[in-house]
């Protein structure tokens, strides 16, 4: 066997090193050392994240595709191409997408400190980090898959530990409920995906993306295969006819896990979907075009309308994230390199905006004993002005108010769809942005205008980890929108992928 194939998987190998080190640390470390577990884990993961960014940094300094060659410095350059006979594809775009997932995971890990310090979770703190990293490995494989078997293995590696994470608060009934609902639905969705894949295999005789492309024609077998496959991924991405699990799982799961589900899991599913659709189903655009058009419209609209009547803030963000998934579909429907750029940029911005909101939610929730009703946020401005400011920036960015990054990400994604002649779709999406502004402002109203309730949180200071993550999120919300070089850079990456 040729081990040089592993050179294409540097991010995976680096993640596995972090994973094994943390595992051994958790097993063999003394009680005293375990108190520093959070610090060690976050530092190691931050190093892993920075390591993943090296090729982009080198690109920025030395020009595109700078190669350091072999030797010591060679460790820091990332080769691109097909590994393991085309099973695993590494391109500049997949490296960048994995980096987005890394940033999001790092921010989530920073936000977990308060929750994991509590008495009933402190003894399984190590487990949380280890399981999270396994799901992340699965998502890497999903993004890099060049074969439907690899895609399936990645999806399952991501979904099974996520169910364990959703049921992580084992003494809470809600958490057990969330775990049960998640595992049953994800098992069903993987069965549906598999059924689709079996028909695709029957129609084409191969599981490799690159070999399959030429064989894909719009005959009934391929269309059945595509529809079942798409439905299975739709469950993961929580598109509307398949979204029913989302609100319950998001509400019941621990807040940090909800943040992870809504950002990292959804982002990885979106990346996998865009690669599969662009690479494999490019020939039958006429088929998926109508499906995605219709799904985008009902996903955005229903997500928005249901968000209006939510009383619980985690449920509220569940429906808000459903409608954001609808916007992601707008980038996919464009079917061009511009669409892929806009979608990747959209996910990057969504990571920072959504995690800022969830950071505030988990900080408040840890102080008031797990109360996540929106009315628990009444008068937050009086008691904690800085936290409510962060929350305001987050929801404004999600709604797309101009100086913040959320405006630019929506702008680019609408541009990409509009350039392909999707005028009606973009118009409907624009109308929905106005609706979404209404319900996002309900949170602002609760924080700034409503009088605080009896027993609301008093003034408190969050711990250093959460503060770091919130500061990073705020920097991201401002900087990514203003630094136009980021969008241009993603553009250069995505043009290599399609045609």
């Amino acid at each position, binding site marked *: 066997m040729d081990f040089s194939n592993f050179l294409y998987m540097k991010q995976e190998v680096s993640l596995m090193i972090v994973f094994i080190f943390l595992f051994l640390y958790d097993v063999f470390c003394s009680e005293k050392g375990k108190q520093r577990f959070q610090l060690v884990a976050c530092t190691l993961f931050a190093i892993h994240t920075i390591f993943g960014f090296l090729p982009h940094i080198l690109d920025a300094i030395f020009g595109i595709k700078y190669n350091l060659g072999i030797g010591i410095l060679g460790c820091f350059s990332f080769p691109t191409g097909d590994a393991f006979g085309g099973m695993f594809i590494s391109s500049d775009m997949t490296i960048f997408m994995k980096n987005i997932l890394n940033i999001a995971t790092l921010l989530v890990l920073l936000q977990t400190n308060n929750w994991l310090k509590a008495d009933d979770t402190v003894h399984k703190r190590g487990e949380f980090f280890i399981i999270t990293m396994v799901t992340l490995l699965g998502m890497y494989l999903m993004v890099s898959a060049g074969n439907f078997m690899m895609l399936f293995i990645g999806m399952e590696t991501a979904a099974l530990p996520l169910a364990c994470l959703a049921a992580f608060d084992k003494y809470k009934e809600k958490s057990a409920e969330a775990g049960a609902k998640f595992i049953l639905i994800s098992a069903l969705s993987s069965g549906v995906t598999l059924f689709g894949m079996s028909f695709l295999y029957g129609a084409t005789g191969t599981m490799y993306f690159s070999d399959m492309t030429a064989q894909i024609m719009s005959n009934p077998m391929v269309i059945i295969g595509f529809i079942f496959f798409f439905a299975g991924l739709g469950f993961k991405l929580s598109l509307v006819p398949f979204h029913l699990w989302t609100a*319950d799982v998001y509400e019941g799961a621990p807040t940090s896990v909800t943040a992870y589900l809504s950002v990292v899991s959804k982002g990885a599913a979106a990346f996998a979907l865009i690669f599969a659709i662009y690479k494999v189903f490019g020939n039958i655009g006429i088929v998926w075009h109508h499906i995605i058009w219709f799904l985008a419209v009902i996903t955005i609209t229903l997500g928005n309308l249901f968000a209006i009547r939510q009383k619980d803030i985690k449920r509220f963000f569940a429906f808000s994230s459903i409608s954001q998934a609808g916007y992601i579909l707008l980038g996919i429907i464009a079917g061009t390199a511009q669409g892929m750029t806009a979608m990747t940029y959209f996910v990057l911005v969504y990571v920072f905006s959504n995690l800022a909101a969830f950071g505030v939610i988990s900080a408040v929730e840890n102080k008031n004993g797990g109360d996540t009703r929106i009315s628990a946020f009444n008068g937050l401005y009086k008691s904690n002005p800085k936290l409510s400011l962060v929350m305001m920036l987050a929801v404004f960015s999600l709604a797309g108010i101009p100086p913040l990054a959320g405006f630019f990400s929506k702008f680019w994604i609408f541009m990409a769809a509009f350039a392909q002649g999707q005028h009606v779709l973009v118009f409907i999406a624009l109308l929905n942005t106005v609706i979404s502004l209404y319900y996002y402002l309900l949170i602002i109203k609760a924080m700034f205008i409503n009088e605080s309730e009896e027993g609301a949180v008093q003034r408190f200071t969050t711990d250093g980890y959460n503060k770091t993550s919130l500061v990073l999120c705020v920097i991201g919300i401002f900087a990514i929108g203003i630094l136009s070089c980021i969008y241009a850079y993603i553009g250069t990456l995505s043009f290599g992928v399609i045609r």
Partner: protein
Amino acid sequence: MIPMEHYLIVSTLMFFIGIYGFITRKNMIAMLISLELVINAVDINFIVFNRYLFPGQLEGMFFTLFSIAITAAETTVALAIIINVYRKIGNVNVGNINKMKN
């Protein structure tokens, strides 16, 4: 030899019986059994396509082996979570995991 269509009819029936069972059963263990039907229908599909249409290769067979292993893992995790639910509410009826609906 039995024609390929006969296998496909059986597997499609199994798939939709599985989906029907998943939707109508109230017991979570029975739902898991229905899911098992779904996955096994897929496995039959893969093997039949491989044997009849592409006899020169083994991709479908390999996929079946992988899917059996992964489904076993999935069932294990699901059973663990169901046991946890049982400890919390005293039964495994999906109608009773409705705390978040109200």
